């Protein structure tokens, strides 16, 4: 566990360094790299002088790094001139939407994927297994943003039954139940996209583990004891198939889950972290972009750490080492 924590620490430091170094490595005025050309043109000389002073851009690089670290410690992620607000405030207003979207998607897809995987692995080679395997493998190959685009076109444009973008209807005074319903309607398409994508990954892993586990002697013993089929399937074989799903959820947090959420939010203009990152790229709002990178990394590393802790609880074999 300690080794893992050190890895996560090193990873986080690497992102810190990158955040600090990138704008300073760019050719030309570092203020321009930090704030972009347009913001710089609009700045008054006083403001420029103030910013130079604040970042210590005229001081040696190690001093600049100390200044950078100490402002981070105070929770100061910088200031977005494009949005005219502190970066930390901008991020905190977008974060809840992503947590809602990704959290719900992870729970739903874990349930669906594991059940489908167990049933499919149990019926290995039969028609249901074949159909599920081909179907899930095809969807797992689809890029997340294309699945999102397809759902958007079908339900939003062709059928016109679900809203196309945003997280709630703008400028409406909904409250209570009608607000909740409005949020759910807006959540439906991005959530469905993520569930489709995550489910197929969980399914493929569960099925593979099921197939391998079913060949183990203890399954034969369980069957020989006369246990019901459902009990062998879910309690004996199924439980073992949970571990890889958990591990991969942890390992894939960094790429699959973050990437999936990011692209899907972009497709549906969902106002979470993905939507924020997208807008910051288009507007060259580098302070927000850097703040997002730091925040997402911190979240991913925390999620990984929680998964590691859970894993030890679920699998007594790994206790003690690692």
């Amino acid at each position, binding site marked *: 566990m300690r*080794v893992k924590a050190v*890895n*996560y620490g*090193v*990873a986080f430091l*690497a*992102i810190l360094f*990158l*955040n600090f170094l*990138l*704008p300073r490595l*760019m050719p030309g005025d570092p203020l321009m*790299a930090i704030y972009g050309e347009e913001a710089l043109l609009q700045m008054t000389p006083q403001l420029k002088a103030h910013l130079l002073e604040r970042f210590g851009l005229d001081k040696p690089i190690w001093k600049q790094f100390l200044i950078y670290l100490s402002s981070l410690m105070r929770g100061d992620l910088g200031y977005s001139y494009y949005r005219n607000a502190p970066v930390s405030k901008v991020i905190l207003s977008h974060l809840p939407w992503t947590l809602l979207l990704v959290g719900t998607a992870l729970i739903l897809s874990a349930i669906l994927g594991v059940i489908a995987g167990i049933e499919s692995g149990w019926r*290995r*080679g039969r028609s249901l297994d074949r159909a599920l395997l081909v179907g899930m*493998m*095809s969807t*797992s*190959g*689809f*890029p*997340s*943003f*294309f699945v999102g*685009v*397809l759902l*958007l*076109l079908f339900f939003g*444009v062709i059928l016109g039954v679900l809203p*196309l973008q945003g997280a709630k209807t703008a400028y409406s005074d909904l409250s209570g139940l009608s607000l909740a319903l409005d949020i759910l309607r807006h959540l439906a398409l991005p959530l469905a996209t993520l569930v489709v994508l995550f489910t197929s990954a969980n399914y*493929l892993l569960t099925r*593979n583990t099921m*197939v*391998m586990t079913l*060949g183990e002697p203890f399954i034969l013993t369980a069957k020989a004891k006369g246990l019901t089929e459902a009990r062998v399937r879910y309690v004996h074989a199924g439980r073992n198939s949970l571990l890889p799903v958990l591990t991969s959820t942890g*390992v894939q*947090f*960094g*790429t699959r889950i*973050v*990437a999936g959420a*990011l*692209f899907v939010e*972009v*497709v549906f203009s969902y106002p979470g972290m993905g939507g924020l*990152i*997208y807008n910051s*790229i*288009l507007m*060259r709002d*580098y302070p927000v*972009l*850097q703040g*997002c*990178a730091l925040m*997402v*990394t911190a979240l*991913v*590393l925390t999620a*990984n750490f929680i998964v590691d802790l859970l894993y030890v609880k679920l699998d007594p074999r790994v206790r003690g080492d690692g």
Partner: protein
Amino acid sequence: MGEVLSELSKDSFGRIGLGVFSLFLLLALVSPLITGDPMLHSTSVLNPPSSEHMLGTNDVGQDIWSRLIRGVRTSILVAVGVGILTTLIGAIVGVSAGLIGGIYDEVLMRIVDALLAIPAIVVLILIASFLRPTLWTLILLISILHWQGGARIMRAQTLSLKERAYISAARAFGAGGGYLILKHVMPGLGPILISSFIYSARMAVFMEAGLAFIGIADPTTVSWGAMMHHALKFYYLPVWKWWLLPPGAALSLLILSFTFLGYSLERIIEPRLRNA
């Protein structure tokens, strides 16, 4: 290599994967012969499909068919480039760490573990949005961020190969390090090298398209992701039928071929999954 290919073509997933991938390779080679200039602007914008423009034109009057077919080259280039680079770095790091061991192994694996913990996509977006890389720089960038998984697996395989009797025998007969690696370790790594290549290629195609989709693309290359990025702005017009769907479908098909190949290979490497 030949063994793996013949093994792949025995399995239906492997056959489909190989077939589709070969088709894309062929398209990438002959694309200039069957398309016009994908960059050429014209005044006929947002045209529906016609005899002149098979898939109509986009918002600046470029021929969508030409862009779709030229896009194959970009994706294949990224797939092959990143596939080769990551597999090469992974093999060098993994095999050398496995064979040499000691502090060298310890230090390298520390780096690998830290890299594995970093959400690569975030780093990629961060760097790419500052640097605005060309296609070649992007290939390099994706590769630098994605060799660690392969290195771990290849180290594990090297360690297991090292203990096998035929390697000890070769060593007992006085085989040198280089000879051992070329003659005995590399062939044992074969399927894993190919699987690492396919995994990286698939990830790279997705990454390039994804970055272009969120607006980070080299404007001088034709990219399916960038096509979708622009087409999505016009979703309320019927243009999505010939502008948004074709690049998305092509991208999915290419990624799918890698998925099928990877799945088929997994069963070659892990015999317990065979006949499933």
